[in-house]
């Protein structure tokens, strides 16, 4: 077996074993509560001794002393949404961020949305459907998803898209799509996509220009939405959309900016 043991027990001696066990349970329970409340959290582990600390939105608690180097590493790991090892004074630490889930706002409780929602949920997004047409946005058509029946501009302002949010408009109706896009394009959302052909999109751009959006704001719209994979059925179009969102999420520029 090519597994090698780098960690041994020697460093436990200075501390009461029982106390460490209590700490560990308390730490896991705190972490699970913070995850449920969607608060950003980082677990810091000493890879030699197994000692741990928890960073929870400015509060820091545990067996590992805070240093300026560790604080920088915590900032970095949260910003990148990526765990990292960090070494200081000969001790190696592992930092694991538990960021709140990414969000997806889908405007239009249409057929494509019925395929897109489960794919997005599988990919780790918290999905909200916005559609004032109550006949479309029903619990029966969208089980276990948050449904918003307000007008899209109000709903979008309330949802307040951040840099971890993707927004997709699917209604095909300018009355519903445009107000949502107006809010989305002035938000830091990492992805904004709009369903519609090149012709439909040209008309949309003209309307949004009229509404006062700048060219650089308009250039953020992915339209026609989704990667060009020749998708035809609603499920295939959902695959193309999910693939494009994933590509944008993991693009190197996005990773560094985020």
């Amino acid at each position, binding site marked *: *077996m*090519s*597994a*090698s*043991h*780098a*960690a*041994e*027990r020697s460093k436990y001696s200075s501390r009461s074993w029982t106390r*460490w*066990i209590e700490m*560990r*349970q308390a730490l*896991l*329970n705190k*972490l*699970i509560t913070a*995850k449920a409340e969607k608060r950003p959290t980082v677990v810091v*582990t000493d*890879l*030699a*001794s*197994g000692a741990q600390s928890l960073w929870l939105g400015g509060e820091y608690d545990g067996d590992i002393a805070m240093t300026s180097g560790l604080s920088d590493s915590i900032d970095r790991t949260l910003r990148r949404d*990526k*765990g*990292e*090892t960090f070494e200081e004074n000969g001790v190696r630490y*592992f930092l*694991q*961020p538990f960021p709140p*889930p990414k969000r997806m706002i889908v405007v239009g409780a249409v057929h494509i949305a019925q395929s897109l929602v*489960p794919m997005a*949920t*599988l990919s*780790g997004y918290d999905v909200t459907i916005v559609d004032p047409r109550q006949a479309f946005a029903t619990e029966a058509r969208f*089980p*276990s998803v948050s449904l918003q029946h307000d007008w899209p501009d109000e709903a979008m302002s309330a949802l307040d898209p951040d840099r971890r949010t993707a927004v997709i408009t699917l209604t095909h109706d300018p009355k519903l799509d445009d107000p949502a896009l107006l809010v989305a394009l002035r938000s830091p959302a990492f992805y904004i996509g709009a369903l519609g052909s090149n012709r439909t999109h040209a008309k949309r751009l003209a309307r949004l220009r009229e509404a006062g959006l700048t060219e650089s704001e308009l250039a953020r719209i992915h339209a026609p939405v989704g990667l060009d994979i020749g998708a035809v059925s609603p499920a295939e179009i959902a695959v193309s959309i999910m693939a494009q969102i994933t590509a944008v999420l993991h693009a190197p520029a996005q990773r560094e900016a985020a």
Partner: protein
Amino acid sequence: MNEQDFDAHKNILEQAAAWRTEGRSVAIATVVKTWGSSPRPVGSQLVVDTNNNMIGSVSGGCIEGAVVHEAIEVMQDGKPRLLFFGVSDEEAWDVGLACGGEVEVFVEKLD
């Protein structure tokens, strides 16, 4: 649809805590560093109990067997372990990553 049905990864730690509450011994394995083309990113976790039940993953299935074996020892003696898996040697009956990557996995007991 219940989120838990199709997003096991998201609920790994919750599951670990639930198993522990039931009185089972539980170990958590976490990918802490990768080099080259490793199958699962840093932060990926695998939770194991003493009956070889597992949730999550630390590779595409290449090293899970060895990690579970180590996890059982971790549950017995309580000592955390830092494991390193390199490129597998096709000539030998060795545990490793066929993809050519290397990973470091930290295994700890949940007490």
